[in-house]
């Protein structure tokens, strides 16, 4: 009985004697609750319904302008009808409004949104409601790029950060530092090793998404997405590398990576569009590398955007990569 008590006590102290573990165990859940309540205090992300108006950006159709006044509706422009349709299919938008021939408006919604569509159409006197049967896996398709990016993110952060901290803790880096191995060779090997695994993982996910959930990426879109993922892996490896360079203890690095991945996953548009969040937060979130990656992969994989369309995101990611690797190289130590 005493052994039971002592072992239980040791297990508790194992957490409480580590500041990072105590924070992860006790502080982080409370912090998450506070953050989530601050972010979603005004309602859940799907309360606001999106209407995509097929028109040139910056030019708002007179009819569509009427919808802007409603709190529960967000109006966005999309010049390409096919892209707007794909957005509807993947639930990135709830309705597509297009001015057809003879200046008639056509409002397209999914069959499940018929009631809401009729209400919306009643605000647009010259609109004709069109109901379409949407794929049941549309939202899965919307999630897919985010899940792909989350895999890349974890691979980079844990593959580089945790492995580096562990290797240093076990003196494997110390051993390597006594050999002529160049630091750059070691770091590159970690990225290449993880990159190969991520390539296989992503290919497998893609096959499952195509076969099982009706995803239909174009070849160009898939190749562009692969490029974005490669750059993303570089960036998140850099962040992992920077964390491992800043912090010595393997357990603290692990706790910190867990802490970092939460906002990266939650506030990068993986599960819902960012514009559901408070405006100030959106501006911060849009600068996150995870957001840049998710946005670019979604555009290329789901909506067939080409390399040019995501060049800005790629530049942003490369800046992140340069900054994190720059910090890491300055702070890196082979041994404790």
């Amino acid at each position, binding site marked *: 009985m005493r052994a039971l008590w002592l072992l239980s006590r040791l297990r508790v102290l194992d957490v409480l004697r580590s500041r990072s573990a105590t924070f992860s165990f006790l502080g982080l859940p409370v912090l998450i609750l506070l953050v989530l309540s601050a972010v979603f205090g005004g309602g859940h992300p799907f309360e606001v319904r999106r209407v995509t108006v097929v028109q040139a950006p910056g030019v708002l159709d007179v009819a569509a302008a009427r919808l802007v006044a409603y709190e529960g509706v967000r109006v966005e422009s999309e010049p390409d009808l096919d892209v707007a349709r794909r957005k509807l299919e993947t639930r990135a938008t709830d309705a597509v409004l297009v001015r057809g021939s003879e200046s008639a408006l056509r409002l397209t919604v999914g069959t499940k949104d018929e009631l809401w569509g009729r209400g919306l159409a009643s605000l647009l006197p010259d609109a004709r409601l069109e109901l379409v049967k949407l794929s049941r896996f549309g939202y899965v398709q919307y999630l897919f790029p985010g899940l792909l990016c989350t895999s890349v993110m974890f691979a980079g952060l844990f593959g580089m950060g945790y492995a580096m901290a562990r*290797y240093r803790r076990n*003196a*494997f880096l*110390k*051993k390597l*530092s*006594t050999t*002529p191995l160049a630091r750059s060779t070691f770091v590159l090997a970690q990225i290449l090793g993880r990159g190969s695994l991520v390539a296989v993982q992503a290919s497998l996910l893609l096959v499952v998404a195509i076969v099982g959930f009706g995803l239909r990426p174009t070849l160009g879109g898939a190749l562009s997405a692969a490029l974005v993922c490669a750059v993303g892996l570089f960036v998140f490896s850099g962040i992992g590398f920077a964390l491992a360079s800043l912090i010595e203890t393997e357990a603290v690095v692990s706790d910190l990576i867990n802490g970092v991945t939460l906002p990266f996953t939650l506030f990068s548009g993986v599960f819902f569009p960012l514009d559901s969040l408070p405006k100030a937060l959106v501006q911060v979130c849009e600068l996150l590398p995870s957001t840049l990656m998710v946005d670019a992969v979604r555009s290329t994989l789901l909506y067939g955007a080409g390399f040019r369309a995501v060049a800005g995101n790629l530049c942003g990611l490369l800046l992140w990569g340069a900054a994190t690797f720059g910090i890491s190289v300055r702070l890196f130590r082979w041994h404790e």
Partner: protein
Amino acid sequence: MSIPFVSLERVSRRYGAFEALSEVTFRIDTPGIVGLLGPNGAGKTTLLDLLAGLATPDSGNLLLFGEPLGPGSRYPKRRVGVVLQREFVPDHVTVEDYAQLFAAIQGVRAGAQQIIQLARLEGRRHLAVERLSGGEAQRLFVAASLVHSPDLLLLDEPSARLDPVSKRELGELLRRVSEKTCVLMATHDLNEAERVCDHCLFILGGRLRAQGSTAELLATAGASTLEDAFFHFCSARVNPSGDAT
């Protein structure tokens, strides 16, 4: 006069307020096995770290192969082999993987085969290193550190956790290696040191207390075994110059 393998002149190293090494002076001119002896915390690992280029002296002169080591100097990694006190190998790495890696790092073609042969692990090349016995693993680490034929081999307690048979095998391997290479080996095993070392350095409290061949040390201490000599040096008072009184 030939260039010494290792030469230290009044070398000191501190870690914060703790003086790990204090004004250590010695030189090693010829190949052979030099035992680095002393109790825990004496400064043996610090000395090996300095010689392995893992740390730099705070003061004094440290020369390897006649070239000074210190901030800004280029450490001669291709002439030195190192076996750490606790070697770590990532999970699932086989003997062959490990041998190939260190042969490649040192740029030695067919070096993997050479490592496996020297470690006498031909029949276990596909086994994960973590599944080797302590003696087998240590033979592998020593063999890998020798693949580039270093002039200086640094070993930190290589026989710790080895059974008597493995210790003897390791000693025999080191004896063969020491015909051309200077082997500097920190050890707590005084019987092993007496058996294999040509020369010994006694360190206590960061200071070099005594040095010489086994016979010289026994004579100085008036002891019949190195173990008796060890206790003699450990119990003697140390004057500021590091000499035993």
